[in-house]
Every structure is written in C-alpha cells, then in structure tokens.
C-alpha cells in the first residue's frame, strides 16, 4: 500500500523526504560506480526496476478498509543487486507508478521510499545474509528475505499512516489497528512473495549462475 498524494501533512512529508534523499543519493553513487565497472549490468538493473514496478502494482483489496495490499519486489532486487541499488530501483518504480497510475504520490514519495524501497530492501537483504550465515540454502534464504522484506515494509507503512491519521488516539494504538487490518491480506501476500523470490533466485542460480556471481551472491 503506497501512501497516496495528499494524505501526509506537509511537515511529515518533508521529514520522510530527508532520509529518503540520503539513501537514494548513496544508492546512486554506488550504482554509478557499479555501472562504470560492469556496464553489461544495465539490463539487469532495468529489468529489476521493471519487476519491482510490476510486482508492486498488483492490488489485492483489503476487506473492510477499502484500500489495497500488494507485494514489494524490493527484497529480490536487494539480493541480486544489493540494498542500496534496490533502494534506487524502488524509488524509480514508485515515481513511475505515481505518474502513470496515481499509485503513491510526489509529496508522499519520500515516505514510500522509506517503507518499500529502503525498508523492504534492507530488511530483505539482512534476512538473506543472516539466513545464509546460519547455513540455510539459497532458496530458503531468498524466501526468508521475501517474507521479512514484505512484512517490514508493511510495519513501516502502517506506522507512517498511524502517524498521519491517529487523530485523538495514540500512535501505537492506530499503528496496531492499521497493521492488524492489513494482516489478512498481507500475510498471504508475504508468503507468496517469499515463494516467488525463492523461485526466481533458484531459477537464476540454476540457469544463469553468472548473474548471481557478478553481484557477489554465491549459489
């Protein structure tokens, strides 16, 4: 669920922009170096950006609330290209979705970058690395990354919404209500994202292992 244009108060929109710009800036610096060293990675970068766009544009209605959930795609991009590059790709996907479908927004772009691009990428990548360190297989580790990245994205988004819409109730209470409301759709979606991420990463490892080797992920 991307936060739409106009939902966040101006001061919160600005506050979310500040860390988002820092992460995207760091990601762009790294991506520039990466593309200079490995120019043949451009197709993978573009493809992952497009995958994030498509995956995070699959709306699943949330019963009773009137809004929608969707998978993220950023954990898979983080496994293949690193979390900072995945942050850049997530931010680009969010920008294009906002422009063409009003899915998200410009003033809410910073908040959406923090939840989906930063949260999904770093949580997914961290879970992947941790799982590998514990000796789990590539597919299981990728699945855990998809699951964790998806759920962390929604924890952050629910917090952002609670902060913006808590009214006279406490932020933790509205945060809990928001997240609980999304659980019936988000948990199945997180499991689906885990299966999808695991499936694609294993498929790539079996068919074109050099893609993973280029980005320092050994099968």
């Amino acid at each position, binding site marked *: 669920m*991307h936060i*739409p*244009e*106009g*939902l966040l*108060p*101006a001061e919160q*929109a600005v506050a979310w922009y500040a860390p988002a710009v820092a992460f*995207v800036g760091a990601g*762009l610096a790294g*991506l*520039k170096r990466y*593309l200079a060293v490995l*120019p*043949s990675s*451009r*197709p*993978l*970068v*573009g*493809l992952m*950006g*497009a*995958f994030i*766009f498509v995956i995070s544009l699959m*709306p699943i*209605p949330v019963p009773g*609330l*009137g*809004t*929608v959930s969707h998978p993220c795609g950023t954990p898979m991009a983080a496994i293949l290209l690193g979390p900072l590059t995945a942050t*850049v*790709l997530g931010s*680009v*996907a969010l920008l*294009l979705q*906002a*422009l*063409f*479908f*009003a*899915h998200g*927004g*410009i*003033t809410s772009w910073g908040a959406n970058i923090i939840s989906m691009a930063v949260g999904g990428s770093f949580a997914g990548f961290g879970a992947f690395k941790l799982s590998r360190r514990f000796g789990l297989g590539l597919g299981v580790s990728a699945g855990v990354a998809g699951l964790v990245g998806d759920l962390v994205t929604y924890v952050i988004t629910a917090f952002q*919404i609670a902060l913006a*819409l*808590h*009214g*006279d*109730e406490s932020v933790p209470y*509205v945060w809990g209500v928001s997240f609980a409301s999304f659980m019936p759709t988000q948990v199945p979606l997180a499991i689906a994202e885990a299966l*999808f991420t695991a*499936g*694609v990463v294993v*498929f*790539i490892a079996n*068919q*074109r292992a050099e*893609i993973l080797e280029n980005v320092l992920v050994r099968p």
Partner: protein
Amino acid sequence: MTHASGSSDSYTWGGSFLSRIDPRIKMGAIAGLLFINLLGASYLVSGTIALTMVLLMIAGRIPYRRQLLMIAFPSTFAVFAVVSQTLFRGNDVFSSLGPFDLHLDGLLHGLFLSLRIIAGGLIVVMLGATTPLNRLCLALRWFRIPATFVEVVQLTYRYLFDIHAEFTRMREAQRSRLGWSSAATGLASSRMLGGSLFLRVYERGLRSSEAMRCRGSGAVVNGTLASPGRIDLVAAISMIALLGILTALSIAGAP
C-alpha cells in the same frame, strides 16, 4: 501503460495542447499545485484543483477509461481516510459501530482529506498523462537530477514493455499447447513462465545493450528541450494566475 495501444506515450504524443507544453513549465506548475493542495487546508482549494484537473483532462482528450483507472487508487485511500478519521478523530459522537465510536468532526476531516487525496492524485497523473517520458527525462536533467537516476528511469520504462511483450508471447504459446488446461498444468506453466520470463527479457536486453554499446551509444539521456514558445508562455501565465487565486483563497481562510 495499459492503454489499448500499450503505451501511455501513445496519447501523450497525441497532439493535445497539453502534450505540447514544455515539461519544465508543467513540473513547476505541478510543484506549486501540490504545495498549495497540501498547505491550503481548504475544501474550496482542493476542490478547485480537482475540478481544474478534470477539465484539463477532458480538454486534453485523455480517454475516459484511463481517467477512471487513474483515480481508482487514490479513491480507495480516500475511503480509508474517511473511515480512519471517523473512528480516531474528534469528540462529537454521532453513532457507534460495535466497540468503535463514530465522530462527526472526524468524518468532516476525513472528507476533507479524501478531497485532498483525489486532487493530489489528479495533479500528479496530469503530468504523467500529458508528458512523454523522454521529455520528462530531459526536464529532469534540466533540473539537475543525477544522470544515473534518469538513466534508471529510462531503463525501467523500457523493460516494462519488454516484460509485457515476452509475457504475452510466452503465455499464448503455453495456452496453444494446453499449458493452462488444468490446475496442475497451470501451476507448472506459471512456474516456468515466471523464471523464463526473467531470463528471456534479461538476455534480450543484454543483446540490445551490447549492440548499442558497440555502436557507441551513450548511457546518459541525449537531446535538449526546445526553447519555450507562445503556448508555453500562455500556459505559464495561466498557471501563475491559478496559483495566485488558490493562494489568495488559502490565505483568506476559505472553507
């Protein structure tokens, strides 16, 4: 993107006067409108913006179905804003729903928020629906947005069409071989489709990327925007007038 011809560029290039306006002027106007929409805190301001955008869309000949698609996502969140504010905001209880009290002042604030969301959504898609992506990228570069970011925007946009083309081709091939005739074959086909789609688009992209590099094609967006003309001047003056009116309404404390 999901327009009948498969591309939003198909009507952003369609000859509408909105498409001919310099994207830098549009981006400036949109930034101003978003700013006022967020800070105006007024039904009248957000309502005027929403109405103006709808009228511009009609004048810009943006297809009716496309307009509905654009407004679908903001509309779902507008409902969410009304529900959440009615539950969580205010003290004036007018009814209750199970354990929750429904507040009249919260409902009114929720309705205001929903109008602001719709207006904001319409402002943003107005830019996307009337500006071809390459002109948008040139404008981004003119505003000194890093070249790497603009390049990723272009790459992502291009691969969306590659994914769509490969997906359609592979799914049709699977259908013709009865790959989706039962649940079991459907599951196997979808697994094959997902993995193969990734690799085929990747390999196709790799080939064209290498070919472009061999021909000396650069990575950074090429070209420049033409100098603003008469239509741009008229658009800029109109937008400044609209922004002035909206600012005056905001300062005057319009309801």
